[in-house]
């Protein structure tokens, strides 16, 4: 990577993406295979190829306030098909992480709330405790009645557990804590 000319004279945003994901967006030559294959591009404000171009141009406001990365389902179609081997799905992750770190309000707040609710749940329970996670999500999004009927039916079918299994909660709490510490140290370095 040191001798790769395409990583020199990058926008700051492109450098942030590179740091976060190891992905060099300057390799993109806009073939738009990622946009063509993306099953969710119809709902995005910018297609994946457009978002990548905006990252290269350093259009921070446009990129970090976009809906695109929050709608990404991580299906990895773009990553698999990119002829330049840019891991586009990882770029999407890196943009989300950068946006959150800069304190930007996510364009699709429910998705960010879902991530937070899920991770809080994994951290405290060791394993995903669906019922707890759903309640945590509702407390964050205020969509109290969304999927209530579906949830009831799943419960009747025995697909949702009442009580979490907490046997490995100490392990996850320890891992979450140490990850934070290592990340903080590396950012400071």
């Amino acid at each position, binding site marked *: 990577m040191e001798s790769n000319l395409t990583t020199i004279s990058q926008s700051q945003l492109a450098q942030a993406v590179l740091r976060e994901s190891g992905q060099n967006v300057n390799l993109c030559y806009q073939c738009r295979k990622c946009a063509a294959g993306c099953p969710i591009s119809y709902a995005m404000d910018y297609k994946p190829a457009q978002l990548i171009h905006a990252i290269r141009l350093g259009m921070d406001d446009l990129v970090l306030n976009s809906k695109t990365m929050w709608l990404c389902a991580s299906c990895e179609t773009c990553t698999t098909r990119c002829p330049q081997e840019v891991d586009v799905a990882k770029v999407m992750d890196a943009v989300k992480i950068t946006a959150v770190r800069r304190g930007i309000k996510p364009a699709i707040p429910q998705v960010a709330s879902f991530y937070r609710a899920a991770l809080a749940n994994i951290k405290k329970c060791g394993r*995903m405790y669906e019922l707890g996670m759903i309640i945590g999500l509702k407390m964050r999004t205020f969509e109290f009645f969304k999927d209530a009927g579906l949830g009831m039916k799943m419960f009747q079918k025995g697909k949702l557990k009442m009580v979490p299994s907490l046997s490995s909660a100490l392990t996850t709490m320890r891992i979450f804590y140490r990850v934070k510490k290592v990340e903080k140290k590396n950012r400071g370095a």
Partner: protein
Amino acid sequence: MTAKYAYYPGCSLHSTGSEYDVSFRAVCEKLGVDIEEIKGWICCGTSPAHCTSRLLSLALPYQNLYLAKKMGRTDVVAPCAACFARLKTAVHEAAEDPDIAAQIREVLKGPLPESMNVLSPLEIFNGGTNPAAAVTKQLPGLKVACYYGCLLTRPSKVMQFDECEYPMAMDNLLGSLGITTLDWSYKTECCGGALAMTRTDVVLKLTHDILEEATAVGANAISVACPLCHVNLDTRQVEVEQQYGTRYGLPVFYFTQLMGLALGIPPDKLGLQKHFVSADALLAGV
């Protein structure tokens, strides 16, 4: 007898996808495949982890690999396609990037387990267990569309599983048991995954496309290998029908449930009663 494979069920197989767990265990028992659940396993972190912190998304799976190694196992079977992908990604990235490997070691406070081999049950059943010899029940009326979803095959560089745009592993396995599977073009299209919790509209559209396509080629059942795919295709099927004014009534099986039926395991031992779209009428006809 000692176990051969360390079994990582993951969170879904203990809850929303418990019938995948039950049917996987039943089929393993029938075929003499030895599995032992990893003691003290933790969540793999799934999408919320890799969308938030790369290090977290790799440390969580590695803890499970570490536990498997502690049991003396290097072969780990992960039926959930999402867990399978996260475990394989962790191994791949630690091997490719010494910096991140060092950080994972720092988090887990120890050396990373080496030569870990993460497997999908499709690989195990296709690789020398010879399930065809154990078939006791013919299911000639079934016309199954095998739906692989995203994460079994993608990204191909990491997963190294079958042909990423048109996989055949599930078709070949079910075919060897005398079950008819169909060619169709939506094998690896995305169902929208966890967006179901937040942007249900997107999932209903993508799921509708998949159900529509399966119906168009004449399928009367869909077979899956991922609990997230199953939730979206089965539990939300009625919602799709309401939204689009259609009627599918298409039962969605885990491929292990179809294997179980062909191997003569009773339906109630395979968790079929847990499905939202009942398979009773279909199975009564075959």
